[in-house]
């Protein structure tokens, strides 16, 4: 067993996903506390080798890259085989993944296989008495749990998006780069990747937006998202939704902000007709300023808001839109 930390970096198309940088940031810190190295692993199809080299500048001492057609589309069976081989070879003390559709899919299986401690969806990680310690929001964010691994051998954690700072970029940093062979037979993995379809909302991406206008059950129907679209256009904002609005079929899933949707961290989050259920606040909580518009003055969203208006959004939003337009134009 080494004192090394292994991170599972991720691609986002032709770039490194932002979570790779978050993982490098926390991974570097943990590796330094353990007195070990930071090792990064990137898997994918064509272009993975080149992309992986960029992880050295994010603080990795060693970068492993697995590039193969069979890794072009994600199947956990193929990815698990490659990651598990790397675990055997590198023998890290800690494996960090991001809480993404890939990270949360591979980590539990690896953890069970190795009887490792597994801490899911962590907002902070540290070393206590040589062991991995984690902070995890539970019960949809209503409570916070601090946990510590009981094992001296492998511990695994997944990190919540946007909870941890990005790694510092150090251009020209030196590190070891290694291409690793991929021997996955399509017949042995009992599944195959068919296709991936991106569903992109029009306009600004939720994750990147400086301002998000979000609607919930209180809007009353799908057509009323029009009100939010108008305001969003003026503010160059993205439009989001609560799970209630998605479950009602009013808007598509990629617009969902919350524990099982997107986690956003805009400068301004305008919550319209959203009560502020904990699972929604997991996604909206990182916002710097929250404005709530709701008819119920007791709605929990107001406990998280900087400004609030109690009243009918059908009166508030058009007036807000008009005033904002005036201010933006001036």
């Amino acid at each position, binding site marked *: 067993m080494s004192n090394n930390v292994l991170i599972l970096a991720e691609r986002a198309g032709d770039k490194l996903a932002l979570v790779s940088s978050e993982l490098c940031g926390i991974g570097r810190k943990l590796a330094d506390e353990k007195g070990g190295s930071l090792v990064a692993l990137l898997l994918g199809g064509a272009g993975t080798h080149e992309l992986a080299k960029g992880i050295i500048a994010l603080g990795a001492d060693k970068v492993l890259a697995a590039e193969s057609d069979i890794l072009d589309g994600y199947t956990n069976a193929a990815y698990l085989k490659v990651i598990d081989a790397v675990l055997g070879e590198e023998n890290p003390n800690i494996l960090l993944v991001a809480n993404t559709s890939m990270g949360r899919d591979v980590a539990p299986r690896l953890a069970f296989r190795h*009887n490792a401690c597994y801490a899911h969806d962590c907002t902070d990680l540290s070393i206590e008495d040589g062991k991995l310690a984690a902070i995890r929001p539970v019960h949809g964010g209503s409570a916070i749990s601090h946990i510590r691994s009981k094992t001296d051998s492998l511990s695994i954690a997944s990190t919540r998006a946007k909870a941890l700072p990005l790694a510092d970029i150090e251009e020209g940093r030196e590190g070891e780069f290694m291409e690793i062979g991929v021997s996955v037979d399509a017949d042995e993995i009992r599944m195959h990747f068919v296709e*991936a*379809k991106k569903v992109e909302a029009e306009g600004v991406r939720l994750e990147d937006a400086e301002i998000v206008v979000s609607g919930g059950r209180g809007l009353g129907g799908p057509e009323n998202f029009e009100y939010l679209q108008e305001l969003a256009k003026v503010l160059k904002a993205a439009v989001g939704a609560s799970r209630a609005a998605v479950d009602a079929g009013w808007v598509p899933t990629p617009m969902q902000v919350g524990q099982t949707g997107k986690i956003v961290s805009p400068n301004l989050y305008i919550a319209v007709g959203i009560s502020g259920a904990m699972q929604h606040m997991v996604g909206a909580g990182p916002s710097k300023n929250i404005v709530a518009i709701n008819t119920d003055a007791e709605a929990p969203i107001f406990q998280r808001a900087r400004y609030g208006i109690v009243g009918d959004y059908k009166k508030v939003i058009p007036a807000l839109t008009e005033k904002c337009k005036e201010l933006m134009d001036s």
Partner: protein
Amino acid sequence: MDIIVCIKQVQDPDIPPRDFKVDEEKMDVVPPANVSPVINGFCENAVEAAINLKEEHGGKVTVMTMGDEKARDGLKKCLAMGCDEAVLLQDEAFEGSDAFATARILASAVQKLEGFDIILCGRLSSDWSYGTTALALAEALDLPSVSQLQKVEKTDSGIRCERALEDGVEVVEVSTPCLLTASNEINTPRLPSVKGILMASRKQIPVWGATDIEVDPASVGKAAATFEVTKFYKPVFDGNCEFIEGESLEDAAGALALRLREDKII
């Protein structure tokens, strides 16, 4: 097509936040009085998906859970929705089991049943959110797994799965037997019919303990956990919301825009 659904009962996540209480010493949640536990939302999606597959392709749906006597109510509801059989896993040795130990228990119970094509679970539980049990169960049984499904279809060669991603959809085809986890997008769970409730009330629910399913008590329960909880509390939010009012709501909206501009937020 024979399907096993593993469900979990949780504290109702929709209780008002002020009723959510924790015991910081015992490091556990204090269940609110007079509020019954409910089937975890994603688990109910899994039950619905299983019944849909059965209705289309025939076969049998067996639902199982681990828990105390209250867990029986959850199983009854699943039977009333249309599941054919239910099993309750209950033993003192199981108490305090973490996700891995639960997966070991479920795996042993699955092996006692007579074969299956699919195991369906929810993608995550709304209480402790480990997101681990289902995939660990797949690992324990060496099954291929596909998680967070928004659609599932039987094809000639296997099962076609659509995974709900943050920014789209991923389509994977998997062979059976396999384990799948359901996301909320997959369906809207049905309410049990009166006829279903009557049928369910007549069904026996067997209780299996550690010896019935040949689980080594040392491999489950609290002592087998791979981590310890060191602190547990409710987060505090300042609640310093400034309510903006005006002659009319339109005036309040205008004042809000001005405040946001003053604060350089817009």
